[in-house]
């Protein structure tokens, strides 16, 4: 094996090293970040994450959320077309958010538990459900 061959072998390693270094530099030069109130405004894509994080999909079938669809509660696919929440109150965004936050108050004894969801989070989840 001659020098030329060795050079061709070394090139990818050099490229990787340069890449690592630039990533490291990039990590160092970012401006400091603060959590602001704006990070917690209702947001559809955050709603999608929250639906998964709060394990809504463990009990409900929800479009766009990965995993085995839940079968404890009713499916929430095409939620925007539904007329009632819990079979009793009209399906409107602010009411849905209240239901997500406090189902036991709407329907004492329901199998759906109060999970301690904040208002903004509930609004985000509602927004995601309507976007489906």
């Amino acid at each position, binding site marked *: 094996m001659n020098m030329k061959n060795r050079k061709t072998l070394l090139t990818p390693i050099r490229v990787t090293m340069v890449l690592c270094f630039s990533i490291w530099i990039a990590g160092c030069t970012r401006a400091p970040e603060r959590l602001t109130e704006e990070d917690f405004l209702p947001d559809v894509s955050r709603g999608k994450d929250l639906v998964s994080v709060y394990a809504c999909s463990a009990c409900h079938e929800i479009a766009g959320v990965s995993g085995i669809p839940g079968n404890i509660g009713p499916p929430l696919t095409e939620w925007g077309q539904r007329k009632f929440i*819990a079979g009793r109150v009209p399906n409107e965004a602010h009411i849905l958010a209240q239901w997500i936050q406090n189902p036991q108050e709407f329907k004492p004894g*329901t199998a759906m538990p109060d999970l301690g969801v904040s208002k903004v989070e509930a609004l985000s989840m509602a927004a995601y459900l309507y976007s489906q």
Partner: protein
Amino acid sequence: MKLIRKAIATVSRFFMKGLAVLATLVRPGQPTALVVTPLSRPEERPRMRALWIVLATVVGLGMMGLAGAFAFIYSGIYDIAAYRPHLEITNKVLTLVKRRSVEFHARDLIVPELDDADLIQRGFVLYRDHCVSCHGAPGEARAPMGVGVNPNPPPLEKAVEDWSHAEVAWITAYGLKMAGMPAFGLGKGPLDLWAITAFVKRLNTLPPEEYRNMVAATRGEYPMAEIRWLPENQGWELLEQRSDDDRGRRLVEYYGCTSCHRIPGAPGLQAMSGPPLHNWRVRHYISGRWVNNPINLARWIQNPQAMDPKTAMPNVGVTEEDAWAIAGFLYTLE
């Protein structure tokens, strides 16, 4: 002896023939020559070089892959936040690993008698103290520590459908890596583990209201200390006798069920005022409160207001006979 020698001879002859064929494939035009000698011949040098190039490429790519993986890990780009869900592929792999591993390790576990009332009662107390915080119970939320765990601890009403009793006991005893499931076998005996299994096994026949009563009873706020399970046969035999899928389908149309529900296979509007009814037989609750079994469903279809006075579902005057036929049809839905 002679036979064996003959057999060996035949096998080796075949083996040599196979080698010869392989050699022709590798170096066309030189039929039966063996591989070792000609490689060192000068005219074979280009072939050697080709081999080296292939080898160097494989090793080089492997090293680059390793370096890339290290760079990825060390850079910290990977988002370890439990707040954001796993990738679909990660979920699938984790689920498969969990499924296969538990099935394999619990394969020889012998399950004792689990229908003993005392065992179930003991299981309930353990469940309330150890499991609710992450898995919740019918109508009861998981504690804050159980919210936001990723992957999510599943509701255990469903466990009976997904795992055998031996598998439930195994998971409870040894826990699950990569899922945050603790090994509850630590500090407990087999009796406790089977007690939890016995309770979990019956969880999908426990109405939310009854679970609340049981918790209240252990605090002394409620006189009942006995668990009031739903009857052993929850109407499945009756349904068998009374249902008639075809009649059920026609009745669904006649009573206008599809004006509010989406029901696959039934004619009509297929509107979405009420919940869609596909996969009805695996659904756990009726109106979010009553355990889904034929008795409750037939009652509900006949007079929903009697079971939930505030429900939007109207009493359309279904007779008892018709209600059972409709129920029978609904349990066949995919």
